[in-house]
């Protein structure tokens, strides 16, 4: 795939920074279940022909499941919260929160999806954590922004 629009990226940062100067599609949040982090599975028109719907939906559904796991209020998360409170929240100096662990899983998944599914098609997913969990940004690497 052509990389001449990849001028925004640098070595060592390709996994973090999506290239500028190319068409970007944004998958918005789905608030039907409240304020939990969930993304819409509606297939964007701009990707028509570039990506199969199933692949897209699989990615989004998997991401949604990771986030659901992160936001899921189970007994263990409650215990973790109570323990943190009792230790005056000093425990977070040593330990990672459950949510952070899940976000790491999301990052790994996004990187893996980019490698296997998206980059071969000239697309690139940006980790939603890089966008404040507002959107999933899909960059079309070989299309200029005006297309």
């Amino acid at each position, binding site marked *: 795939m052509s990389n001449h629009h990849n001028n*925004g*990226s*640098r070595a060592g*940062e390709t996994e973090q*920074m999506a290239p*500028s*100067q190319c068409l*970007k*599609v*944004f998958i918005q*949040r789905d*608030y*039907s*279940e*409240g*304020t939990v*982090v969930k993304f819409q599975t509606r297939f964007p028109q701009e990707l028509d022909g570039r990506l199969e719907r199933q692949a897209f939906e699989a990615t989004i559904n998997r991401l949604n499941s990771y986030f659901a796991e*992160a*936001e*899921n*209020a189970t007994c263990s*998360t*409650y215990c*973790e*919260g*109570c323990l943190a*409170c009792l230790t*005056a*929240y000093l425990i977070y100096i040593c330990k990672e*929160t*459950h*949510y*952070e662990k899940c*976000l790491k899983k999301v990052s790994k998944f996004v990187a893996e999806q980019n490698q296997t599914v998206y980059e071969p098609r000239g697309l690139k997913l940006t980790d939603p*954590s890089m*966008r*404040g*969990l*507002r*959107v999933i*940004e899909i960059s079309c690497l070989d299309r*200029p*922004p*005006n297309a």
Partner: protein
Amino acid sequence: MTLDSEYQLVDLTAIHSEGTDSMSEMARDRVTKKWEVFAGRNRFYCDGRLMTAPNGGVFLLTVFLITGTCTLFFIYDCSYLAEKVTVAIPIIGGLLFIFTMSSLLRTSLSDPGIIPRATPEEAAYVEKQIEVTNSANSPTYRPPPRTKEVLVKGQTIKLKYCFTCKIFRPPRASHCSLCDNCVDRFDHHCPWVGNCVGRRNYRFFYMFIVSLAFLAVFIFACAIAHLILITKTNDGQFLEAVKESPPSVIVATICFFSVWSILGLAGFHTYLTTSNQTTNEDIKGSFASKRGQENMNPYSQGNVCLNCFYILCGPVTPSLLDRRGIVTDDYRAEISRPVNAEINQPIKSYGVAVQNGPTQVTMNSTDMPGIYRQTTETTDSNAGSVTHLVSNEQPLAIAPVLQKTTEHQYTSQTNLNQSPVYSNILSHAQVPLSKSQSYANNLNVAEGKGEVGDLHLDPVVLRDAHIVDKRKDDKLDNDMTLQDKENSLLSASRLRLLQDTTMIESALDLDSLDDSSLGTNSQAGLMKVVV
């Protein structure tokens, strides 16, 4: 080796203005962390680890009051009570004090759940979506929808568009005008704590006020006990007791006056926690059942206990701001790149030029579908977002020249064909401003142009300013044609006008105003103003 690094450094300074690459930036001693270029008004300490609201005065007062009172208590009352009653008293007092202070510091110094602002591409994409829904068929101007309705668990909730952050706010989020950020699950901005209270630090805030309530009651009881015990040993002479231990009286007085409000606040927040509401929602009565229709809270877990647990011990996102990350040139470009990244056409064909950009504004010569209207929550925020896209050398200094608008109206008329937008703007003569303006000012109303209900200054300013900026990069000022100069003057004047006439230094929460006139016709209630 030394020579190499020296050479590298020299190289850097020479090309610094064009942007260095991240490697060489790291080679220099000073790297810029992301908190230094943060768009909101928060203050950062410890290299971005701690963050507070801009005004920390009242917070310091809180800290002083608590530590001062407790110090007096420990010195005077505890020494007496420890021997006469039990040594547990200072221990309990000490534990309560530590817990209170740590909760306070946690609340004040952590990220309340700030939602990072949209990148320029995101903002453009959202605008395009708004434009698409707006476009098509209306020959008369229709203001763009600033709200979007979503179904949350079967209930319709309106999402508002934040002009400063350029996002549709998630449900329960709100924009704090003091800190100039959108905060997730915004509760309120607490000056005592010196920070917003939002999703991430609500539990610390709650712990703080509950423990402070216990502490205040405890100290009050102990101080009174101390005085009573002394009175008893002095054969019932209360005044003698006071003379013997005056700090106890001070402590008791402070506690007495503060305990009512703290207990009240603790009780109120307990109610909010059990019903899973925020202060913001409670004040607005979002889920009150007295509105004729049943307004159930769609976020509630259903159960008092579950709500409590969920809010106080539930999972919480880490800070979405990467405060201590290093600012690379990519990042800098990302946050500061103006919306139209690809304009390189002369300003004369303004209407055409813009269409090439990602915003894809469809400009007609007669009406301008203002893509977004800047209801400035504060001028500073507006200035921040507008000047964000305006280069620093935007000549505001020449803006005053433009205060005589009538003259310019005439001059700009000649440019009608070429820059239709300008004529449109100026003919509406500093036009209908936002609600904030209408509430604040009593300026003369003129120009009752019905359809143009908005301040169109902002989008035009942005594009102008950017265009001018781009032009500036290419040419020196002398090389600008009269047309260009005029255009830059116009945009500068608009910027100045915006700053002058919108609410300056007002912490008005426009969300509450917005609620009173929701919907697409919210502009109907606006006053039209001329300067």
